[in-house]
């Protein structure tokens, strides 16, 4: 029996678009339109998609930074939207923490590192300052930052170091799950490997689950157990990392993989197989009818512009495409 930690069922988030003096709602931005997936304890699930696909919105929903329009999010079996704020503080917040993309803006520039990393402890526990600071030293050591960093300010550290500090902060309350929003995309190439290795080591040590939002497929392959591909607010494919990369089913997945591969110019066979999509992702204000991807799909059929495809199981993967029905 897989140990499911987080389960997201059919979540929908629509943002109203208002206009006019009386602020009438004239339309809806359908940021997420029915997304479901689950994350097991100790495993990494990556949410992949391009900008506008809705992946950051999913993260916000899980972190309760904004509220769902409809759908359910279950953590350890409990519906987090039914929690009162006291219950949230006790049962949810300490267990689910986040690491953000931008190491320059995710820390208060006016606070010292010991207060930044210690803040979760000050807010959620009764620890005396001295004890909290000792814990901070331990946490920093775990991510490879020495104790002299305690009294320094964020601007005195490099991007990679700041990201490590962000990880230390996220671990302060011993969470079960981390939501990582593009944790390495703002970092230098040679630093990314350091952070990714650190995250993997911590996962093994503490049996942490990760939900990683990323757009770089190579990073995703390296870090994930399961992968969910999003397009225009919906999941189009979901499966184990190896299965998905070896046998991508959805045309969009194939295009993404093709765009991310290392094809050398002399490799004419590889060049010929490249899938280059036309156009750009449509606006979530007005998604195309039928299958949302059909406007750019190289394999679109007649049915694709009319009927909305269902999410179907093909082997161990799930796909939302008419070619598999």
């Amino acid at each position, binding site marked *: 029996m897989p140990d499911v930690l987080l389960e997201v069922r059919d979540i929908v988030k629509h943002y109203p678009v208002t206009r006019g003096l009386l602020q009438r709602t004239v339309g809806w931005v359908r940021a997420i339109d029915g997304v479901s997936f689950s994350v097991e304890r100790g495993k990494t699930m990556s949410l992949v998609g391009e900008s506008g696909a809705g992946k950051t919105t999913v993260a916000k929903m899980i*972190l309760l*930074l904004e509220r769902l329009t409809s759908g359910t999010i279950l953590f350890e079996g409990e519906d987090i939207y039914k929690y009162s704020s006291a219950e*949230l*503080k006790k049962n949810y*917040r*300490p267990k689910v*923490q*986040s690491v*953000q993309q*931008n190491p320059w*803006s*995710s*820390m*208060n*520039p*006016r*606070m010292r590192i010991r207060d930044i990393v210690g*803040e*979760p402890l000050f*807010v*959620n526990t009764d620890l005396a300052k001295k004890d909290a600071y000792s814990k901070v030293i331990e946490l920093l050591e775990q991510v490879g930052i020495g104790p002299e960093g305690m009294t320094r300010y964020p601007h005195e550290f490099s991007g990679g170091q700041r990201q490590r500090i962000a990880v230390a*902060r996220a671990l302060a309350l011993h969470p079960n799950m981390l939501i990582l929003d593009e944790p390495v995309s703002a970092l230098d190439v040679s630093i990314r490997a350091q952070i990714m290795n650190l995250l993997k080591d911590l996962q093994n040590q503490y049996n942490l689950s990760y939900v990683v939002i990323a757009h770089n497929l190579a990073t995703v392959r390296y870090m994930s157990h399961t992968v969910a591909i999003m397009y225009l607010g919906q999941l189009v494919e979901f499966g184990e990392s190896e299965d998905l990369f070896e046998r991508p089913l959805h045309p969009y997945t194939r295009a993404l993989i093709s765009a991310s591969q290392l094809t050398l110019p002399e490799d004419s066979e590889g060049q010929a197989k490249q899938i280059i999509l036309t156009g750009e992702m449509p606006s979530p204000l007005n998604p195309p009818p039928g299958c949302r991807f059909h406007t750019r799909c190289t394999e679109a059929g007649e049915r694709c512009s009319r009927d909305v495809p269902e999410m179907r199981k093909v082997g161990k993967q799930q796909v939302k495409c008419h070619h598999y029905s």
Partner: protein
Amino acid sequence: MINILPTINVKKKKQYRGITRATRIVRNLAFIIPAAIMALMVIMAIFADLSWMGLPNVGIAPHDPNAQVMTNRYLPPSFMEGGKSEYLLGTDKFGRDILSRVIFGARVSLSVSLIAIFITAFVGTALGILAGYVGGRFEGLIMRIVDMALSFPFLLLAMLLAVAIGPGFWTVVFALSALGWAGYARMIRGEAMRINQSDFVAQARVIGATPWRIMSRHIFPNIVNTLIVIMTLQVGMMILAESALSYLGIGITAPQASWGSMVADGRSYLDTAWWISTFPGICIGLVVLSGNFLGDWIRDKLDPRLRQL
């Protein structure tokens, strides 16, 4: 075929090394001179006499500012013909020493302004942060009140207050504060909104921080820079406003010497006993200019900027 051309001669002019030394010296003067003037004014205000230490007759003011010596009326400054050495800047129509009155005037004008600045800063910042954080209708309400305060005519309010509760020190403070907080509220609210949407505030929410914590430990420390700049730039404005009120007779009244009222006293004598208005007028000008220069300098320093280039 590439032509072999001689390498450029690198001209090592002094200007080459980034910002020149001369420029740096001038930039520092922009701070030193105004700061010195303000410091001088503050010293004058504090040490006019030591009555706050219990020694009313000790201080830098050579005479009692209110001592009327009718035999010494309209004396010109000591460096002019007819002046007396003990009245360095001359006397007014009651024989009162101008220098002493200017020194005590510093105390009055500066204290009114500083008290008003702190009150307006406190109220304006608190409302601005709240409005920026809470948003929604509450923010709308506060901003509409701000708009009203900003458009209300200041002089009219001051006159109404003078009629209602009588002119004087606290009336002026009240008049300056009643409308002055609005400017702060508007600027701070913009900053607070921006910071409220930043990543580290979102992170604090994820950690479970209370609104109070977010406002006091995250938003406030990040608006302090803006606040300091505004406050420094307000010094000049407040002094001018107080001087205007005192000049018009609805501010600080006799016998207290305020620079503004001193200017008013001498206005009929500008061609004969010009020193009565001129010296306090110069002080007003100096303080306002220094306050503005200092404010500009502080703003340049505190605004995020590439410090090295």
